[in-house]
């Protein structure tokens, strides 16, 4: 089963994703796991290598930032590199170009448009 790892320091993001994607989860189209910090996300990847194929990460988090996580991920998991999508409230050029330079596959700004995210996720998996 291919999993999507969602990384955000806001814990309610879990409930929100589970409800927003309830149909997809129920039907088994998508499966989500959650980490609440960059460090947690790295630890999860350590233990469940190659399980998560898509990572959706917030950038502004206390401790390890999303960009740092991105750098670690892209360096460590070269083959096959997981798809990493960055989400941030700051949709500025600096953040965007930095994310792209580090190898992000997509760049979304908050508030997240769930229907377009749904499209994107389905496109990646189907």
């Amino acid at each position, binding site marked *: 089963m291919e999993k999507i790892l969602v990384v955000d320091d806001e814990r*309610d993001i879990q409930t929100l994703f589970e409800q*927003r994607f309830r149909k997809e989860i129920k039907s088994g189209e998508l499966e989500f796991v959650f980490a609440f910090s960059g460090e947690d996300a790295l630890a999860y990847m350590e233990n469940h290598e190659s399980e998560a194929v898509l990572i959706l990460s917030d950038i502004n988090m*206390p401790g390890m930032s999303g960009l740092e996580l991105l750098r670690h991920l892209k360096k460590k998991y070269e083959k096959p590199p997981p798809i990493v999508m960055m989400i941030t409230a700051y949709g500025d050029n600096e*953040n965007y170009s930095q994310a792209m330079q580090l190898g992000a596959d997509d760049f979304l700004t908050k*508030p997240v448009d769930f229907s377009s995210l749904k499209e994107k996720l389905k496109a990646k998996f189907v």
Partner: protein
Amino acid sequence: MFKIIVDFFVPAQNDKSAEYQRRVRLVAYAIVVTMVFALFYVAASWVAGYFTGLSIMLGSWIGYLILLFLLKQGLNVFKVANIFGLIGIISIYGSIYFSGGFESPVLPWLASTPIVLLLIAGKKSGYFWAIVAVLIVLSFGLMDYLGLQFPKAYYESKEDYFTLSCQTGLVLIIFFISIVFENLRVKAFNQVTEQKNALETTLSELKAAQAQLIQSEKMASLGELTAGIAHEIQNPLNFVNNFAEVSNELIDEMKDEMAAGNMQLATEIADDVKQNLDKINHHGKRADSIVKGMLQHSRSSSGVKEPTDINALADEYLRLSYHGLRAKDKSFNVTLKTDFDENIGKLSVVPQDLGRVILNLLTNAFYAVNDKKKLNIEGFEPVVAVSTKKTGNKVEIKVSDNGNGIPQSLLGKIFQPFFTTKPTGEGTGLGLSMSYDIITIGHNGELKVETTEGVGTVFSIHLPV
């Protein structure tokens, strides 16, 4: 009349203090009044046939005139006053000696010198001439006791007249010189009152300006916060919107399930909706408290201490100020570190005030690391840390940065009002001075700074529990 003469002899000494100039006028008046009385005395001596006294008095009159010119030349007023005292007492001594010594009607005049000198030259001169006068009285007494015969160089027949004019003259001269003294004293007092009123007006204007500055300082820091606040509100608002939308969909599903008779599923969805409403409520309250915090920050401080969670307060301002700066300067990035002691409990503080201090220290810390970052030092990672710790009966809140530090030469000035190293228009220079007052005066605490140039700065707030 007197005034014209005095004005003539009083030099314009604008470089001297007002009190000195007052004294010069006083001495000039005293000499002029004395000279007038000396002339009366000369006339009275003429009538009484006391020609020795007349000569003495004319001699002293010339002495006084010379003295006035010396005063005009700018001779020190205390010297003039005491020479005036010396001439006076010598002429009085002479007059007494030649008009019957211990029994002379001129003897009471000895009282005039110490009194007048006390008024015009101050206490020290007063004491000195009082002692001299008493010694002279004693010496006359002793000479009398030893049986010395004093000359009595006036007409015996005019004794009553002579005594009368001497005593009247004495009463009047002391009275007139006192009047001059009193007038000048009242004038000086009025001047002081006027100055005091002017100062009071200035002071109240300054106080108003200060209040205005404090308000603008608050507004300036609020400006720094707005972007951070907007960001902080955005997150809960996103949740509110998302959970509301999802709940709407869920209700539709619930209706479908109910129509299909699946009560079990419908109940499950209802539970989810209920949970979502709780979440909406929770995030709504979160946004609410952020707005309240913002209002609290801009409002004038209530000044009321209330039990406050210091860790939460520090954390809130850390987030707000960071996001505030982050929004203003997109390239700004810094690693935030927090180390909160969970055993602090609630501390009785004025939350708006303490919040402002923390905000201020943080803004400075961010500014410092950002400044250093501009130097493009290899491997420099900006770090700003906030920590709290309880030690004994004190709570310490530390804000540290690894910026450029504060030069030793400026360290003494940082808590002074209006001192700032920021470019004009960027800093009010009031942040640290107000912080210092809030901590030391408002909370009985201490605000300390440790800094190493090139390494960083640590500000620590120490509050009594």
